[in-house]
C-alpha cells in the first residue's frame, strides 16, 4: 500500500467540465465520437438491464407463471398486497436485517481496528496486508461451500477448535443446524470474508489525514485518546461510511453464501430476502408474484442507498 492521501469521489457532480478544445477537429466531430463511444454501453445496458426491468414491472401486475403456458391475467396490485401482508416475507426481511446489521457492525469495528494497527506501519505490513486481503477476493459460493465442511459437528475444524479451546463437547452444538446458531454461522463467514474489505477502505481514510493536524494536536498536548476521538475518527468517517454503504448494499442482496451454507434453514431461520425471492421465482415459479417482490427489493435498496449517499455527502462536507 502506498502512502498518498486518499480522496473520495462517490457521486461527485462531474469533475471539471472540459474546456473547449481550441483545435480544428478533423474526421469525426467530438460529438460524433462521444456518441459513438458511449452508445454501445448504453445500448447494452438498456437491453440487459432496463428492458428487463420494465418487463419485470409489467409482470409484477400479472399472475404469470414461467413454467406454464396458460393465459396471463392482469391482477392489478394483488401481488404487492399479498407480499406486504405475508408474514413469511416479513420474517425474511427480519432475517435479512439481522444479517446486514450484525455483519456491518462487526466488520466495521474489526476492519477499522485492523486498519488502525496496519497504519502503524510495522515491519512487513505490506506483505501481511496482502495476505489478509485474500478471503475477500475469493468466490463466496466456492468458499462458502467449504465452510459447510468446517462447520460439520463431528469432523469439522470449527467445532473441533471451539471444543479444544473451551472444553465444550464438539457434538453438542451445530452451527448450521440450530435455530439459535445458524444466523451467527452465516455472520461469521461473512465477517471472515469481508472484514478485509472494510479494513482496506478505512486504511485509505486513515492515510488521508495529513500529518500536520496531528502535529498541531501534539503541540496542544492533546492526549492520544483525544486525538483519536477528535481527529482520527471524524476525519476517516466518510471512508467508514462508504465502506458501510458498499457492504450494506452487497449484504442486502446476499444470496450465494447463504444459499450454500444453510439454503435458508433450519426451517426458515436464515431465509433472507434473496433466498425467498429465488424460491418464489425459480422453484415455485410464481413469476408475477416474485417480480413484484423483486421490484419492492429494488426500490428498497435504491431508496436507502440514495438517502445514505446524501448523508455521506453531508459528512464529507463537514
Amino acid at each position, binding site marked *: 500500500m502506498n502512502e498518498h492521501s486518499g480522496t473520495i469521489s462517490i457521486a461527485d457532480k462531474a469533475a471539471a467540465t472540459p474546456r473547449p478544445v481550441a483545435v480544428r477537429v478533423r474526421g469525426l466531430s467530438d460529438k460524433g465520437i462521444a456518441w459513438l463511444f458511449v452508445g454501445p454501453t448504453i445500448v447494452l445496458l438498456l437491453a440487459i438491464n432496463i428492458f428487463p426491468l420494465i418487463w419485470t414491472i409489467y409482470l409484477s401486475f400479472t*399472475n404469470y407463471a*414461467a*413454467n*406454464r*403456458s396458460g393465459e396471463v391475467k392482469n391482477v392489478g396490485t394483488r401481488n404487492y398486497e399479498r407480499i406486504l401482508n405475508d408474514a*413469511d416475507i416479513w420474517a425474511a426481511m427480519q432475517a435479512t436485517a439481522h444479517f446486514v446489521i450484525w455483519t456491518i457492525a462487526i466488520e466495521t469495528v474489526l476492519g477499522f481496528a485492523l486498519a488502525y494497527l496496519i497504519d502503524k506501519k510495522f515491519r512487513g505490513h505490506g506483505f501481511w496486508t496482502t495476505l489478509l486481503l485474500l478471503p475477500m477476493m475469493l468466490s463466496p459460493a466456492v468458499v462458502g461451500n467449504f465452510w459447510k465442511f468446517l462447520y*460439520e*459437528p*463431528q469432523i469439522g475444524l470449527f467445532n473441533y477448535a471451539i471444543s479444544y479451546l473451551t472444553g465444550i463437547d464438539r*457434538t*453438542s452444538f*451445530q452451527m*448450521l*443446524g*440450530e*435455530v439459535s446458531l445458524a444466523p451467527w454461522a452465516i455472520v461469521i463467514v461473512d465477517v471472515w470474508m469481508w472484514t478485509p474489505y472494510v479494513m482496506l477502505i478505512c486504511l485509505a481514510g486513515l492515510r488521508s489525514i495529513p500529518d500536520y493536524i496531528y502535529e498541531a494536536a501534539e503541540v496542544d498536548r492533546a492526549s492520544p485518546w483525544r486525538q483519536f476521538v477528535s481527529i482520527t475518527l471524524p476525519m476517516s468517517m466518510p471512508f467508514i461510511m462508504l465502506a458501510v454503504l458498499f457492504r450494506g448494499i452487497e449484504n442486502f442482496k446476499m444470496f450465494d453464501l447463504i444459499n450454500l451454507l*444453510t*439454503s*435458508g*434453514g*433450519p*426451517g*426458515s*431461520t436464515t431465509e433472507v430476502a434473496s433466498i425467498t425471492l429465488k*424460491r418464489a421465482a*425459480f*422453484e*415455485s*415459479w*410464481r413469476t408475477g408474484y416474485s417480480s413484484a417482490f423483486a421490484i419492492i427489493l429494488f426500490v428498497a435498496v435504491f431508496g436507502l442507498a440514495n438517502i445514505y449517499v446524501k448523508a455521506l455527502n453531508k459528512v464529507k462536507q463537514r
Partner: protein
Amino acid sequence: MKRLLAIAGAVAAAMSLTPMHEAKAEGSLTLCWAAWDPANALVELSKDFTAESGVQMKFEFVPWTSYADRFLNELNSKGKLCDLIIGDSQWIGGAAENGHYVKLNDFFEKEHISMDDFLPATVVGYSEWPKNTPNYWALPAMGDVVGWTYRKDWFSRPELQQEFKAKYGWDLDAPKTYDQLKQIGEFFQGRKIDGKTVYGASIYTERGSEGITMGVTNVLYDWGFEYQNPDKPYDMKGFVNSPDAVAGLEFYKSLYKCCTPPGASNVYMGESADAFKSGQVAMHMNFAFTWPGLYKDENVGGDKIGFFANPAEKKHFAQLGGQGISVVAYSDHKDDAFKYIKWFVKPEVQAKWWKLGGFSCAKSVLNDPGFTKSAPYAQTFLDSMSIVKDFWAEPSYAQLLQAMQKRVHDYVVADKGTAQEALDSLLKDWTEVFEDNGKI
C-alpha cells in the same frame, strides 16, 4: 501488467473467432439424471449401447439437492442440454401439460413395447399423466422406494440382545412397528460400540429441496395421513391435518430429537448413507438405490447389513421414489433418444441393469424366480414396492413441495409451533396453490 493485458486480449480475440456454440457432435446423446450410484451404474451399462449403435453418450448428473431445481429450470427454459431425461416421478404432470416430454404412446405401439411388462405401481408412478389413464410420457427406468437398513452385526450381539430384551421385553430384531423402531433408536443412541459412540437412526431432514418431505410423508402415510378426500379431489381439510397426521408428525419430530446423530439437521440421501457407512448409526432410512452400494461396502456391507421395509402403524405404506426415462421435446436428437429407449427396454439389458446396481422395473427381471435370491435386499425391495404412495404429481408440484418443506422443517428442526399448526398452515398453503391454479 502490460504483458498480462496483451495475453488477455489475444485469448479473447482467439475466442471470438471460434464459434461460441459448439454443435453437439453427430451421433451423440446427452442423458440427464441425478448424481448418485445408479447413475454411475448407468454410465457403465450405456457403454454397451455405444458399442452397439455407435452413438456416443454424454451425461449430466446433478446432486439430489439441486436436481429438481436445475432440471425443471432447464426444461422450463426450453433448453437443449438434455436429449433424454430421467425425471422425478412428481414432475410428470407439469412436464406433460407443458409439453416438455414427448408423448410415447405412438413409439411404444410402433416398437411393440407394452406397459404390461412393467410393475404396475411404476407405470402409474413414473409414466402416466393423468394418473390411471393410458397416456405415457416416460418408460419406467429406475424403481425406488424408501426403506431401511440396519446393522445386523450389532443386532446379533448376545450382550446387546440380552440387555435389550431386559429393557423392552422383546427380541432385538428389525422393527415391525414405529414404537419398536423408536425403542431400538433410543437403545443405540449414544451407546459405545467398539470404543466408538454410535447413534440410533439417520432420517431425512434436508431443507433445500425435498428431503424432509420425503422422510415425513414416508412416516405420515402409515399414521393415516391423506393428501385429499379419496371421494372428492382437492378436498384436503381434515385429511392433510387430521389428528392421525398430527400424531405422525409429532412422532417424526420425536424420532429426530431422540435418536439421530448430532448435526443431522440437513440430511438427505447422501448424508444419510454416509452416516450409515461411517458406522455411526444402527438404522438408516433411505431410498432403496443406496442398498447395492452399502451391501458392497467393505466396512458395513456383506453380512453386517440387513434390510427391512417401512414399519406399519394404522396403515402400511412407503414413499415412492424412482423415475422414468423420457425424451425431451426440445432435443435435436430425438431419433437417437428413441433408439436408446428401445435398447434399454430389452430384457437382457434390464437384467444387466439390475446386476450393475440399477433397480429395474421390468417384470422380466422382478418376476424371475431367481430374483429374490439374487440379492439380499431383493425381497425387501419387492415388499416395499407393493406398498408405495407418492407425493402430488400435479403441475404445481413444486409449489406444493416448497410449502411442505417449509412447514415441516420449521416444526421438526427449527422447533417452531406445534404439529397441528404446521399442518394447518400447510393446508392453507396448499389450498391457496390450488385456488391460484383454478383447481378449487
